[in-house]
């Protein structure tokens, strides 16, 4: 079983969210999770004009910090990539590091009462999706598969929690 470090930054309810996330990731991708602090200070990568973190730059710092294992960074700050208004998460195909934000996954952001259970489900889907890219998975056409492309929270809600058979087989053969 490969190791996965989960690091949170600027995530107020980290304790509550990450323990369950670790369990879900361990089950879905057969990874051995452990919590660890972020190995660098992310503050210089914050874009004050956009009030968002630059996901591309964060990922570039995260990759060498992975140290042969998988590394997932979780934040409550909003993320962008240079050409996009926002992204829910980011990872490169075949990379070691992944990044997800809870900023647009929270019901409060859309004027609705908080829903911690739904947030945990959305975060797990977003995290498995990004780590799936690290296992070399591209977006899946199966709308029930967690690797189905989701550009909004509605699409995150529509897809399933797990990898479809084809994607699961691809992950198994990539090990």
């Amino acid at each position: 079983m490969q190791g996965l470090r989960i690091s949170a930054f600027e995530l107020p309810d980290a304790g509550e969210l990450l323990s369950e996330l670790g369990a879900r990731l361990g089950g879905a991708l057969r990874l051995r999770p452990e919590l660890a602090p972020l190995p660098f200070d992310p503050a210089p990568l914050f874009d004050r004009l956009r009030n968002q973190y630059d996901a591309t730059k964060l990922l570039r710092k995260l990759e060498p910090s992975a140290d042969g294992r998988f590394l997932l960074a979780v934040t409550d700050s909003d993320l962008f990539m240079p050409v996009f208004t926002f992204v829910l998460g980011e990872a490169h195909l075949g990379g070691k590091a992944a990044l997800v934000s809870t900023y647009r996954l929270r019901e409060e952001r859309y004027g609705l009462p908080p829903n911690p259970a739904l947030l945990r489900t959305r975060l797990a889907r977003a995290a498995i999706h990004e780590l799936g890219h690290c296992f070399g998975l591209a977006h899946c056409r199966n709308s029930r598969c967690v690797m189905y492309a989701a550009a909004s929270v509605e699409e995150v809600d529509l897809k399933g929690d797990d990898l479809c058979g084809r994607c699961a087989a691809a992950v198994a053969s990539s090990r």
Partner: protein
Amino acid sequence: MTDDTRSILIVDDEFPVRDSLFHWFKKEGLKAGTAENAKAALVELTRETWDIVLLDLRMPGMDGLELLRRAREHAPDTIYIMITAHGSVETAVEALKLGAFDYIMKPVDPDELTRIVNKALSHRRLTQENTRLRAQVAALSDDGELVAESAKMKHVLSLVESLRDTDVTVLIRGESGTGKEVVARAIHSRGVRRGFPLVAVNCGALPESLLETELFGHERGAFTGAQYRRKGKFEQADGGTLFLDEIGSISPRSQVELLRVLDNKEFTRIGGSRPIKVDFRVVCATNQDLEELVAAKTFREDLYFRINVFRIDLPPLRERAGDVPALAHHFLKLFAIKTDKEITEIAPDALEVLERHDWPGNVRELKNAIERALVFAEPPALRAKDLHALTPAARAEPIHAPDSLAEMEKAHVLRVLGRADWNITQAARLLEVDRVTLYNKIKKYGLRR
């Protein structure tokens, strides 16, 4: 947006933008490539085919608009999507006029990018599908298709090939049904005017006055019934090829008029006063001996010399040893697709019948014989029994035909019904009438199985 066979080239001078998009599209399952400037993009476009090019409008050196202009010369079928910063919408609109598919504003919503790229990909898929289907339709039709296994037809084919990329006037001679129009189309499709239409006129099928209207067109009110202005074949063929079939049948008056148009490349519509300039290639065909007609003074010698620049003689099918099986297979494939019947081969006994036949009606007769036989044929092969119209007994039948037209019709309908095993649809198709008409005939003559 996932389609692993599709490719996208990202052209942007900013590395972070290129990099983000590159990884984004790779995750979409697309083959992604990048170019940091216009020059590198043009190199990529000449090196391989890209389905989509995502192009930054503002780049140092050559800007996106200029690149779009040049790129479309190299790769006109590729889809171009422009990326533009806020405030340069006018330039983006200019890009649309130059043929860009769409534009997106930086920074872009991820779902907006997905939507536009999806739209572009389905457009590209439809365009390619359309091209493929057109090619399939072209393959299904006989246009320009020449089947040549025999030495005589191979010689004809070499003559047609020698006319490639030329504009010379051609006279095709051959018996009725030998495929003169097919050869005319083959010449047109290989000639310099292939991008323009081939307009065919059967001169023998029209009386003199109608032929004149057909060729010259007319102005509104030129004669009783001319309610609208109508373009004639001369105008329709402008830029392309005018194919005049059965040229030997046109009247002396029409010959004079035709010669004048061919010489001056100018004519006037009937009832009109303004001369119209036209430019077309002329290909004529005839099954008559034009020299004999010239000697008998029924065909003008000057017109004969005008059209007889390059001559192709088409052999009758009975002299084309080896072509009958090849043509039969060609028509089998054609009609099997058209009728959606899984008949893929011709049984040896059927081939024997076909090769024994002397084909007085030439290729046209063979084509009709295969089409009719397919109505009866059962998968997977066409057999001799399906070709009963060609057997000596079937051909002898009319000798014993009754004198009365009604009796003749009754006997014929009965015979065809028998041949179709009383399958009304099949029999109606053979008789070339609709099913209701056939039912009425059965009732009228009291026919019974």
